[in-house]
């Protein structure tokens, strides 16, 4: 099954960052509602998955 770390929304958190935690990253998505647009980040585990998966492996070295 596709995992979050293979999704285009998944952004690994560099290990220099305060909230770096092995095996987690930021899931960044554009969201819209009747008031407008916003960009939302939630912490996710690399190996989790969700129904909105979009393939697009991110360069883990960045």
């Amino acid at each position, binding site marked *: 099954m596709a995992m979050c770390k293979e999704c285009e929304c998944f952004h690994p958190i560099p290990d220099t960052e305060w909230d770096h935690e092995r095996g987690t990253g930021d899931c960044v998505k554009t969201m819209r509602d009747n008031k407008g*647009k916003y960009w939302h*980040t939630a912490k996710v585990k690399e190996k989790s998955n969700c129904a909105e998966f979009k393939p697009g492996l991110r360069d883990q070295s960045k």
Partner: protein
Amino acid sequence: MANATLLAEIKQELKLEAKKGQPLGKALWDKKLKEGPGSVPRTKHLYKRCRWAHTAGGEYVREEIKISLERARLYTEAHKANAGEVPVILRAKCLEHYLKNCSIYIQDEESIVGIHNERPDKLELYPEGGAANMFDYLEDDSLTPPELYDEGVEMVEYWKQWSLSAMCERYMEPEDIAKLSTGVISEPPVWTHFYTSTVPPYQTVLEDGLEKRIEWCEKNLRKVRDKLKEYPWRGEENIPLFEKIDNWTAMIIAAKAVIGWARRYSRLAKTIAEEFDLSDSVVGAQQRKKELLEIAEICYNVPAKPARGFKDAMQSKWFCFEVVQNMERFCSGYAQLEDDLLWPYYKASVIDKTAQPMTRDEAIELIECERLKVCERGVTKGRWMRLIHPGINDLHILTLGGLDENGKDMCTDLTDAILEATLNIHTNEPSVAFKYSPKINEKTRRLVFECISQGYGFPSIKNHEKNTRHSIEHHGWPPEVAARWALVLCMAPGVTGRKSTQHSRNEGGGGIVGPAPGNMALSDGFDAWFSHRQVGAHTGDASKFTWEELLKAVETQVKHNSHLMFMNKEITSYAEGKRLESPFLAMMDDWNVEEGVGAFARHKPYSNTWADYYPGPLGIADDLAAIKYWVFDQKKYTMAQLLEALKANWQGYEDMRLEFLSAPKYGNDDDYVDEIATWFMNMSCDVFQDAKMVGGEKGAQLVPQSVSAFVTLGSLIGAEPFGRRHGEPTHDGGCSPYMGLDKKGPTAVLKSVSKLPNTRLKGIQLNQRLPVELMRESEKGFDVWSAYMKTWHDLGIDHVQFNVVRTEDMRAAQKEPEKWEHLIVRIAGYSARFISLSQMGQDAIIGRNAQELG
């Protein structure tokens, strides 16, 4: 005569093309109706799509608003994982875990970022406050999605033993808790509604940056650890150091977590700029990308490091506000002396252009963005508080103006820019208080006038000199601290600056129900109207009272009610110090860092103990005057007959009610009743000052005011001798005459108010209503108003605020609310959109007499 040069300057800054002879206020009003609020496309866009988060009738006005359990969940996780920790470090670790793992988001076109909610229109909860507030939300189907209910209940169960309520209840007799819980004599126990306020000492973070404050805490820790190693052992000196170690450790954890959280926004802003489509931005894709990269740079810089310029300062302040007042805990307010606080950064950016250079117009745009961000804040507070705050998110009040300790005008170009932004963006939040003195420059006073003439109901005007003197004499603040006071919430001055600001409402705030002592004195303390139980003191059978016995009974009720209230506050203060510390707030305050004490430590350099009457109590003066006139002077009625009529809510006694209504009324410069009002206020000051709260050796100070409790608590107060029926609004403000009963003009009102012991009162709220024709539609308005303000100031009166609104507009808004969303009115300590008020609230505003000046 209007200063033509000044007017021309203001018109140019507001980009007004007023027709020749057209008053500035009218030109501005027409412009906003035609073009909508906002000085630039961004703020016009943000206004139109603003996620208003205010309530009406206790309910949120937008049905999209729902609760989230993200904060509650993360706090519960961290609490379970660290349950063995000392309480203050446990609180710091809960904050750390939350800031590390919470969702964050940035909305389109935002210039200031940072929010405490999981996503837009989701409001977070605070399970550590106790079950009452949690269930208030969980059991509301319109707010809680069904899938969250069970999890929420589980959290309530977990927190029962750890909550503020659990700790506080043991210190008060059940009978007294029951009395307070009715809300009839005092606000309900603080630990059930979990409402507090604070004055964050932003200056330290803006000037130092968090990294420097962490270093200071670390240095203090090293000193103490070295002391502990000193030979020989000194237990009496060393044991107290352990708590300091805990406090500094917690401060460091909290401060590092906030730096990390802010840098998460930096990362997100950069990601959006580099990876996402911005082509639909109102400023264009290229510009928006540039802005987001700048936001990323700013969020990396602050609050870790000192603010360099105006953009840094606004962002750093906002981050601190979010943490202190939404994340560590919900705290009401937006307290700051904003122009004084931000002037160095505005000067650097706008005037000198040495750091983050920007134009004056760009600074005004940023201030407009700030105002809209406040309107979107979204808070969860107990139903009691939502009911008495209709039409607002929360009591957001910032302060401007004043004189320094040498009597020099402190207003700057930033003061004017803030007022101009307020004129441009037309929001009711945050409200603005202005520290007025005739010594303040004319341009700023003119802008204050223009805001009032737009009908905002603010700035509310506080007498700078009177309040500064009161702070020196009654709180013992030194002059340079006293001069820089800002309102804590609606009415009460508090310390600003780097240290010893007010951190909790349990130090100053809260109060007793103003009309209640009068009601209770006539009923031997029994509430026959709402709770049907004994809530007040036993003061005897009022039908047999002499005049002196009646006064004594009123005084006894004031003592009884206020004593329970002070006990309530101090119990909660004690408990929050033990169990609900705010280590980030403590870290912001120089005194707390120096001493290694928690945020709620009270033996501090500048204490600020005070409490309110709310709603205002001067119905008692009208009651006593009516009784004195008809029962003891004219002897037309007996006390027994009066009590019979009151018991019937005046039904069947209309002629008698009209006679009692015709007795002398406060607000008409009539000594018959004004002397009673003065007696009552002096007696109340004596009673409050008898209460020596922790740190407040001069005694608690008194602030009569009302929020909108004069409407919402009308159902709790029985029929009154002055002619009021049960359920009708009570007196608004703290010293406003009853609606419609001030018949001798505005100067008579001022004269009645001036007889009260203004120098003894920390604040007393006066509402007045002035005609639109004079204020907004006449060139004479400013001069006439200025002359009135001089009289007000010369009489030494504490406060005044103005409604400027037509009765016919309000009636039209009642019929077609969708056409009148822009109509803002002053309620009491805040302003609200007229259409968000209940019918009774609307009628109460309509009922206020419009005074003619000049």
